[in-house]
């Protein structure tokens, strides 16, 4: 395999958890809620996947991860939707609680300092024929099921948001909750459900980190990916297609370090890691980007 082909494969692999989390964040933000706590959902999903993967195998591990991520988001939704606490602050607190709780539980479950868990990783599913395409074959057709599921999930979200009544109702909650409620939409429930969905996908992202990338759990292993998901949604201008491309861009930026090591380039790659964030800021600075953000994003749904 050539270095370029390896780099592209690494880019897609790195982008997978980002795409999963960003898809969830996209849905909840289109419903008008910014879920900063998705970082916490990713961590909860990662720990659940690690424990489940050791005890039950990778299938149940994924289910547990989805549930753990959704449960974390459920706590968030309880505060934000039901008690109408400030979204950003609540999300930050949820991240703090989840960071501590996953680390503490990990110690309680697996002993002091955790002695480096070894969790069986899922193998890539190689599509015969297509994976042999030069350069991009391995990147697109020799990935784990998580990657294929992430792409299919994004297509499903696009379809639902753009073409269904449910999608229209959800977007109405993010643009003008008062009008949505007047039209008979249960905005609180819709926003809560969107948060649970985002949490579940955050959990899936955590499972991908454990079951595909690392094969172990470590404290704080999400390493800011939840925040990156928020960046990806903004860079993708709150549209499914844009989010897909933005996730790949962030994945590619992180994968550059492999390329640098392989080529023996000594340039500090941190300069390149910063690029996608700068690009996001620039994208936000254009007026069209603001038009893309849901009008009621971040605002409480006051009755």
């Amino acid at each position, binding site marked *: 395999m050539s270095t370029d082909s390896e780099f592209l494969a690494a880019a897609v692999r790195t982008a997978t958890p980002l795409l999963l989390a960003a898809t969830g964040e996209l849905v909840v933000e289109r419903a008008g809620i910014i879920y900063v706590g998705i970082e916490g959902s990713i961590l909860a999903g990662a720990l659940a996947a690690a424990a489940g993967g050791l005890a039950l195998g990778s299938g149940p591990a994924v289910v547990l991860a989805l549930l753990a991520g959704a449960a974390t988001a459920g706590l968030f939704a309880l505060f934000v939707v039901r008690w109408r*606490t400030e979204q950003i*602050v609540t999300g930050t*607190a949820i991240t703090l609680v989840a960071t501590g709780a996953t680390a503490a539980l990990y110690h309680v479950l697996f002993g002091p300092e955790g002695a480096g868990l070894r969790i069986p990783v899922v193998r890539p599913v190689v599509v015969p024929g297509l994976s042999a395409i030069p350069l991009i074959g391995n990147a697109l057709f020799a990935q784990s099921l998580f990657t294929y599921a992430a792409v299919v999930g994004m297509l499903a979200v696009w379809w639902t948001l753009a073409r269904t009544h449910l999608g229209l109702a959800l977007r109405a909650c993010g643009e003008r909750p008062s009008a949505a409620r007047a039209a008979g939409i249960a905005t609180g429930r819709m926003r809560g459900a969107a948060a649970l969905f985002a949490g579940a996908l955050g959990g899936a992202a955590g499972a991908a980190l454990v079951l595909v990338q690392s094969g172990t759990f470590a404290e704080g292993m999400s390493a800011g990916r939840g925040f990156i998901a928020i*960046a990806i949604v903004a860079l993708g201008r709150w549209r499914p297609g844009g989010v897909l491309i933005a996730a790949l861009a962030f994945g590619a930026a992180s994968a550059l370090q492999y390329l640098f090591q392989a080529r023996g380039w000594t340039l500090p790659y941190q300069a390149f*890691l910063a690029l996608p964030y700068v690009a996001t800021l620039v994208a*936000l*600075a254009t007026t069209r980007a*603001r038009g893309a*953000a849901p009008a009621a994003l971040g605002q409480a749904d006051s009755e």
Partner: protein
Amino acid sequence: MAASRRSLEPVAVVGGVSVAALILLATLLALGGYDVPVALAALWRGSFGTSYAFFSATLVRATPLLLAGLAVALAFRAGVWNIGAEGQLLAGATAAIAVAALPLSGVLRLTLALLAAALAGGVWALPAALLRRRGVLEVISTIMLNFIALNVVGYLVRGPLQEPTHAYPQSVTIDAVARLPRVPGTRLHLGVLIALAAAIALGIVMRRSAWGFRVRALGANPQAAASAGMIDVPRVALQAFVVSGSLAGLAGGIEATGVTYALYEGLSPGYGYTAIAVALLARLDPLFVAPSALLFGALEAGATAMQRDAGVPAAFVTVVEGSLVLLVLLLPVVTRWQSERAHRARTGAS
């Protein structure tokens, strides 16, 4: 609400929440199967139990939390959701280390380093503050700036600012003359007094000055503040945002010249994020940020001791910190319930 009740409210909140924190921690430790008295004794010894722990651990930890907490309190008071204190703090630390390496006389070098830190923090907040005027949510832009700051530091300590042997990803250690003086026999540095002075100054500004009034009016109700005609809302928000960044930058500068003496990626163990909890617990009142920062400084210093002496993961304390924020967030909700109940009682509805 009566004025006297309001002025005492933060005291009750910090006190009540401290007790709640201890109860929650004890419960979690018991659930985790740890020896609760042993763990709590270690927590106490590591935070308040000995004068060395108090001066060299608790107060040293509380200092950056106090300044960054002030930064968050000011921004939130103005209705600006600056969660970029971490990035602004790193920008300040970077500027301080760079200036502290210049060939200047001691006091001048240190003074300039701290001024540069405050300036850098403000500059780092500026893009987000300007974008906010164009309608970009500052949550998203400050998160971006946090990541950019972290990566820029990562680059600098492997590139232009790396120490001369190029063995470690960190800057050169600054000269003794450029360091904040320490209290002999402890790790406590002059920064704690600077932080306290900043808290008092900001408290007076917020309470007594016209600018403080504008900031408070802005946060309380931007529409009303604008329509009352006396407040240029975007301008005051921008000012509060940049001053907030400067305070966080100063926190970084003081940490760099008082504690770490060098720049590296792990310089801040998330002070900028913990500061959000610190500010909220103080109900965004600058004067109460000090006791709140002390509580969090003690918790973090105690957590380190608990991990070392009792084998209890420091993460338990992180859970408590996050729960405290959730608890404080619920206080307005509780107040709202109470007022609704009182209202129903008055109007005779069920």
